[in-house]
């Protein structure tokens, strides 16, 4: 659904951003057109895998079914999921994502360490949409 936002499997799974060759600014979701730093004369934007681990900036959940274009099966009861905003230390960027299934807000605190893992956003008979999830480190389920 979104092209080249992440890559790899297992421990090699990474979010993919881009980095400006002139000012070293990092962008996620990837910026492939022009560097958005207003003080930068403009450089080449090269793909950059982001750090696997970061710290929880904040978190919440979604107790009501989000409207389309979020895809969910209206036949099934709504299962809330947690959303985590994670600060990556070396990039100094905050990236929002869903938590792995089974993690609720009760499992989270601001500042705790989480890592990015591959996940499934949704599926129908034809398509499985893959995505990234955040998972507290030390949780393997």
């Amino acid at each position, binding site marked *: 659904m979104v092209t080249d936002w992440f890559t790899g499997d297992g421990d090699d799974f990474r979010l993919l951003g881009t980095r400006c060759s002139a000012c070293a600014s*990092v962008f996620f979701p990837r910026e492939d057109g022009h560097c958005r*730093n207003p003080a930068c004369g403009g450089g080449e934007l090269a793909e950059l895998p982001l750090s696997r681990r970061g710290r929880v900036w904040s978190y919440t959940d979604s*107790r009501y079914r989000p409207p389309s*274009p979020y895809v*969910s099966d209206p036949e099934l009861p709504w299962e809330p999921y947690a*959303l985590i905003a994670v600060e990556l230390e070396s990039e100094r*960027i905050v990236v929002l994502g869903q938590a792995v299934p089974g993690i609720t807000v009760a499992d989270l605190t*601001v500042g705790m360490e989480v890592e990015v893992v591959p996940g499934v956003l949704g599926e129908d008979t034809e398509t499985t949409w893959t*995505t990234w999830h955040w998972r507290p480190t030390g949780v393997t389920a």
Partner: protein
Amino acid sequence: MTADVAVLGAGMHPWGKWGRGFVEYGTAAARAALADAGLEWRDIGSIVGADTVRGGYPGYVAGATFAKALGWQGARVASVYAACASGAQAVNAARAQILSGLADVVLVVGADAAPKGFFRPAGGERHDDPDWLRFRVLGATNPTYFGLYARRRMALYGDTPEDFAQVKVKNAALGALNPYARYRKRVSAEEVAASAVVADPLRLLDICATSDGGAALVLSSMEFARRRGAADPVRIRAVSTVTPRYPNTVLDLPDIATDSAATVTPPDETFRASIARAAYEEAGVGPEELSLAEVYDLSTALELQWYEDLRLCGEGEGAKLLREGATALGGRIPVNASGGLASFGEAVPAQAIAQVCELTWQLRGDAGDRQVAGARVGLTANQGLFGHGSAVLAVR
């Protein structure tokens, strides 16, 4: 400092779910503002509309739609879209015309009939639209972001859900006094606590609803106001419509990530704080001179954030200011004397204009039971999706 423009008239259509079209709400508000100004529609040289989507029409309309409904009379026309800042940009466009001498008197109108439930992006597969992406990729609704801000405040400053609830208690008590508000019933902290969680830690009564509504203003040059016998009108002294500065490091609607601060030092104030500062600087007025403020309380927790962004108190002291009663009616600096979005709900193109209507009535001393005693200086603060600042500073 720039010159003032006069607010000759203010008008609203009551907010709520009326099941009618936005043209009707806007036209009713416009007629009320014209009557308040003592002017005929034919006296108006220019109309500026804050845009909304017309059902069935693939785009945004406003100025000419209201002009047609009021009766074509050849006025200069403009329409502006800036999401929730549309109303402030409409006020700003009108003000620019007046100060440049293009128009003496301008009608500003915003109205909408909002859909029920969550706001959502327009249809289609739109991978280049951050608003579409956050729904499709994350299911991140607007309350998601309000929940993130609220939880962050709890972690950083020790705010509690009970503090958030007290914002609703305060605003509902004020909305009960406002005939234009949608919700006119007091709410208790227990009722907030008993309402369903929408986005942890926020509950249904912490989050503003969607509504129908309309608001309008008649603005003029000070010279025109004097000629019309308005010697001492409410005056708009500043309009802030700034963008953020790179790198914007607070995760903001509708974005999935912030700018990186790894190689460029972030500005020493947030986007929201810069919106207010721009208005203060343009007006030559400081926060200590404010009599009241109308802020964009999409959630109860966000109102506390605005206290700090408007520099009504220090960082992290919003809940303390609330607990002291400073922002209640009768306090040092009443906030959302209108009842705020908590009592009105969102009618996107109208809300920034409605904030200025409230300042106008307050600064005239016409706000009835919710009057802030001796109000002389008022500030509105608002924020439009996709990086639109919005603040209006008015004086009497």
